[in-house]
């Protein structure tokens, strides 16, 4: 778990508080929970954006995040159901949620183009953090081959979203 905090740490220093609690590599039930939580967080951010933005590019981006992460999370639920794995809450998931709640409160206080810019820039950063965690810890730690394969698809999805977000950043300039 240390590596995940290292991967996320640059942007979320508060996460290091959880370090002492979580020394081990995550188990498959924990990995499933972390990956699912990462999707839920981006869905919540997208819902906030859809309720606030007046920009067509930002709206289309947010809708795409909502649809894609729902689809992959549904696929993840089907997989854990099939494998008989129960996703297990853990300090990493909790730290992700706490950081995301704080960020969402910050974004909710903004309006107009200030909101659009902050939302999209955070999407670039957030997707980069999840990619680092997938690559550095979650994918190498996954034991079940089907879970690993779904995480690899998730990696491509987060990478695609990050690049899409970067294009929207350019379009907003």
């Amino acid at each position, binding site marked *: 778990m240390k590596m995940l905090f290292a991967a996320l740490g640059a942007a979320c220093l508060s996460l290091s508080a959880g370090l002492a609690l979580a020394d081990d590599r995550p188990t498959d039930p924990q990995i499933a929970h972390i990956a699912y939580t990462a999707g839920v967080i981006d869905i919540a951010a997208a819902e906030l954006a859809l309720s606030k933005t007046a920009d067509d590019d930002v709206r289309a981006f947010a809708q*795409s995040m909502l649809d894609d992460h729902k689809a992959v999370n549904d696929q993840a639920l089907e997989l854990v159901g099939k494998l008989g794995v129960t996703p297990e809450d853990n300090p990493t998931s909790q730290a992700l949620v706490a950081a995301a709640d704080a960020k969402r409160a910050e974004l909710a206080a903004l309006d107009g183009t200030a909101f659009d810019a902050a939302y999209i820039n955070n999407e670039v950063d957030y997707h980069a953090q999840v990619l680092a965690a997938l690559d550095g810890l979650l994918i190498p730690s996954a034991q079940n081959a089907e879970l690993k394969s779904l995480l690899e698809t998730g990696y491509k999805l987060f990478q695609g979203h990050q690049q899409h977000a970067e294009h929207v950043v350019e379009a907003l300039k």
Partner: protein
Amino acid sequence: MTLRHMNRREVIAAGVLLVASADAVRAHNGTIHVKIKDLAFSPQEIEARPGEIIEWSNEDRMAHTATVRGGWEVMIPVGAKATHVVQAGDNVDYYCRLHPNMTGRIKVIG
């Protein structure tokens, strides 16, 4: 993988007879199939003649596009197929606008 999905080098390597039959399949059908699965176009590179139809079939649970920068765009909804009629000028790289890490290439021949 069917014959018409083989790239030119593979076809040449397979011999003259196979080239002839690959061309025959093309001539009678004229549709080139590209599968989209797990955020990838397959085959990634295709050869096509002007007037032939490229048909993308999206086996993913998310929508994709085939987009040419500054050019045409085909939307390919979840579980759907979408087509583009190849034009003489379609020697292009394309990508998915929603997931720009997905890329493909069309090489116009003939």
